[in-house]
């Protein structure tokens, strides 16, 4: 018997190749014909991209604030004019802060800027005049923003007066400059990040769904009763979704660059090297989930909670990892998207920084290997 097997090695290898090709072909037909995979691989990414390209913006423009001038003088009027000209604020004027207290509580204005009665006198005396900023601390993002930009506006105003020789120069002139994203457009950050989210969707969610579907429809059982091996089954699933993931990513990049005008300063090689490596842990996790459950509903829940949400929340995509509690920061180390997102942002906005990419690729590869090892261990040609 053993001798026979050895002699049959060659046809066996050919059979393996043929089985693999058949599985890949089958899977590809299904992807093309199944509206739900098109939905997850192409429509959902578009929606996400447009949401982050147009809908969500971390920049705030034209925030409504109240400007209280307690004493009207040419100097304070000049300052007021400078606030009104600011592209960050839309200003409501008043003479007493109490007029606006309710508005602030109700969110009708986001801040109250009080130019005190002493402002002109202080200025004339050469003392540094102050503007009081009252903000709603329960909305810290906006509060910070109002505070910073109000300070900036005042600083600009002082600088401008100094340059025109109407005021003494300010003691310290802090000049802010942002590298790589000079306009600080959050879209330029979010769109590369959302590409990672999209690949998580295709790699993990879609893959775990299609395997669970085979169990539910009873096709998995029929396949297992053929000479196909568990490894062939897994590989036959991986390749089509690997390609689908890269296709979906390419589409996203084209939209990002040509529609949203996100700069692309790195190389295409770096983009594909990073994305392809990222798909390893994503697909591996998808397979692991499908080994754990044979039910589509459960698989989608597991994929959303264990892959999609971490990629969203724990990757530095929306929230700064440095400002997370230490324990959460540790957790982020096992989130593959954490390594992809900064690298992708670099590819888009800065260019190729290979030492950084090499590190990301190495870590993602490692996590991918672990997922694959676990998935291969738990996938058996067995039922129940």
């Amino acid at each position, binding site marked *: 018997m053993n001798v026979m097997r050895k002699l049959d090695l060659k046809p066996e290898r050919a059979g393996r190749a043929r089985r693999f090709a*058949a599985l890949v072909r*089958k899977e590809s037909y*299904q992807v093309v014909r199944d509206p739900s995979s098109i939905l997850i691989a192409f429509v959902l990414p578009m929606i996400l991209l447009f949401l982050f390209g147009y809908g969500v913006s971390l920049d705030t423009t034209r925030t409504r604030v109240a400007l209280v001038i307690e004493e009207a003088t040419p100097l304070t009027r000049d300052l007021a004019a400078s606030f009104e000209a600011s592209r960050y604020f839309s200003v409501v004027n008043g003479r007493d802060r109490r007029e606006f207290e309710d508005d602030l509580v109700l969110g009708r204005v986001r801040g109250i800027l009080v130019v005190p009665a002493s402002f002109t006198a202080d200025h004339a005396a050469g003392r540094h005049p102050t503007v009081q900023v009252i903000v709603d601390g329960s909305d810290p993002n906006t509060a910070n923003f109002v505070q910073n930009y109000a300070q900036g506006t005042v600083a600009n105003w002082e600088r401008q007066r100094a340059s025109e020789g109407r005021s003494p120069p300010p003691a310290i002139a802090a000049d802010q400059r942002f590298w790589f994203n000079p306009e600080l457009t959050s879209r330029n950050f979010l769109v590369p990040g959302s590409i990672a989210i999209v690949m998580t969707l295709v790699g993990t969610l879609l893959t775990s769904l299609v395997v669970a579907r085979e169990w539910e*429809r009873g*096709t998995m059982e029929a396949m297992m009763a053929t000479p196909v091996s568990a490894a062939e089954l897994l590989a036959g699933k991986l390749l089509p979704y690997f390609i689908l993931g890269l296709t979906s990513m390419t589409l996203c990049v084209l939209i990002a660059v040509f529609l949203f005008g996100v700069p692309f300063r790195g190389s295409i090689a770096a983009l594909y090297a990073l994305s392809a490596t990222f798909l390893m842990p994503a697909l591996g996790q998808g397979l692991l989930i499908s080994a754990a459950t044979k039910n589509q509903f459960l698989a989608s829940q597991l994929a959303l909670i264990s892959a999609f949400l971490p990629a969203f929340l724990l990757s530095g995509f929306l929230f700064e990892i440095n400002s997370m509690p230490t324990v959460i920061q540790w957790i982020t180390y096992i989130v593959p998207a954490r390594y992809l997102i900064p690298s992708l942002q670099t590819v888009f906005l800065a260019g190729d920084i290979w030492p950084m990419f090499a590190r990301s690729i190495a870590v993602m590869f490692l996590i991918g290997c672990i997922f694959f090892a676990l998935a291969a261990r738990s996938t058996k040609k067995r039922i129940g």
Partner: protein
Amino acid sequence: MPTPRTEIDAAPFVRLSAVTKRFGAASPALDAIEGVILGGRITGLVGPDGAGKTTLIRLMTGLMLADEGTVEVLGYDTRRDPGAIQAAIGYMPQRFGLYEDLTVQENLDLYADLRGLPKTERGRTFAELLEFTDLARFTARLAGKLSGGMKQKLGLACALLRKPRLLLLDEPGVGVDPISRRDLWKMVENLTAEGIGVVWSTAYLEEAEACDHVFLLNQGRLLFSGPPQEMTGRVEDRVFRLSGVDGRRRDRLARLLDQDGVIDGVIQGEAIRLVMKPGLPPPTLGTDDGAAPARASVTPPRFEDAFVDMLGGGPGGRSRLAETQRAFTEEAGRPVIEARGLTKRFGDFTAADSITFDIPRGEIFGLLGPNGAGKSTTFKMLCGLLKPSAGEGRVAGFDLRRDAAEARNRLGYMAQKFSLYGDLNVIQNLNFFAGVYGLSGARKRERIDLMTEIFDFRSIHDMSAKDLPLGLKQRLALASAVLHEPEVLFLDEPTSGVDPITRREFWTHINGLVEKGVTVLVTTHFMDEAEYCDRISLIYRGRSIALGSPDEMKARVASNDLPDPTMEDAFVALVQDSEAKEAA
């Protein structure tokens, strides 16, 4: 060196030695099964749902391992050599294992590649199989768009691509119309002529009669192994048909079942079918109350008769449920259930096409037909769950378009698969359904207590419904449907998959309720069960192709070749008739 054929045939294809399989802590799914399956014949794995049929087939494929004992298939141990087994068998799982979004040809190609069918042999093999299954015209059609019968044939074709030595078919006949089932049977019979071993699992006991060898399973135990004739032979000359029954035959049956010496009895059209203890003559009816005596004649035994006999006989004829039920005697003046041209269209598909019938009080009316024929659609329109596209329906005098809620208050509904709340326990389920049907206070308590007593729920009152064995689920579903003493009962596949004893008990209750004037509408695809009805409507492809009593239907198709047709014979003949008419 090829082994001589005779030697292969002599060796058993499957050898089961003390095979035991457990899932969790419950009693074993298979308990010390012993047996041998030979090539060149059809071996039936027969038994109700949950008997262990699917588990046993999976053990033979090597996809599942036994906890104890060994399974040897084609000389290989399933534990050590599953690969060798999988290369040599064909397996069709319950839902045929087809990819619905692939075409017929693509499914064939896929399985040909997976099974390693050489390219040179493909043209011939495909042509042969497509011819054999009559699917040649449909190669470009998506498998999902095939009818149940066609899917079944394609599933078989995929399992046969590389001529297997052993073919395992898991419930291939479920939900498929009898004509396709007969076609499939013929195909499989042809295969056995070539020496292929076939395992055919089924819950239909009439299929067992056609097998060469039968393994009868019940609750994981092997009750019988041998030719089906040996099984039916055990009740030979003990099965009688009482015809010309004077008076109400359901009432007669109930009393007969309580007599000594009567093992089993069912309604069979106008007659009563009885199984007696060995050596006892059939009881004479009518001596005690002056009614005319019935004619008793010996009739050929069925597998089901022998099965019930083996299980120790039926449950007796008394229904406490019926005894406590108030009677509906008042003449309504019009039928209790009326369907007038009921039609339901989904897009361009007509699921039910002008279905018309009347059901008078105290009648059992059956809708008979394969899955997807339109039974459930008709059913749902009549209980107001689905709005008809055309036509009207009335229940207890209420128009379903206007007074659906009123109508529903008067009917009890037992849905397919016994729609209970799996996470609620028995008493919580009863409480819930009592609430839904508007019972409250003392009456609610009284009815629930009564049901608990009648159906013997006390010992299981705190078990979750989902953990109940199938038979108890069915009891609980019936109890929930009759809590409010409805005058109309709707039963959708009420005995699907349950063992014959549970089925007997169920029908004893239904028969009793009907004697009290309850009107019953039942759907079924069990041909035997159709004979418990007073009248049936044969539903096929959305239309009612015949309406009448079971005896009338059988009489319509009786011929010289087939003087005593079964209900299935009648069904097949009537469908072929209607198709011929359509073609003309």
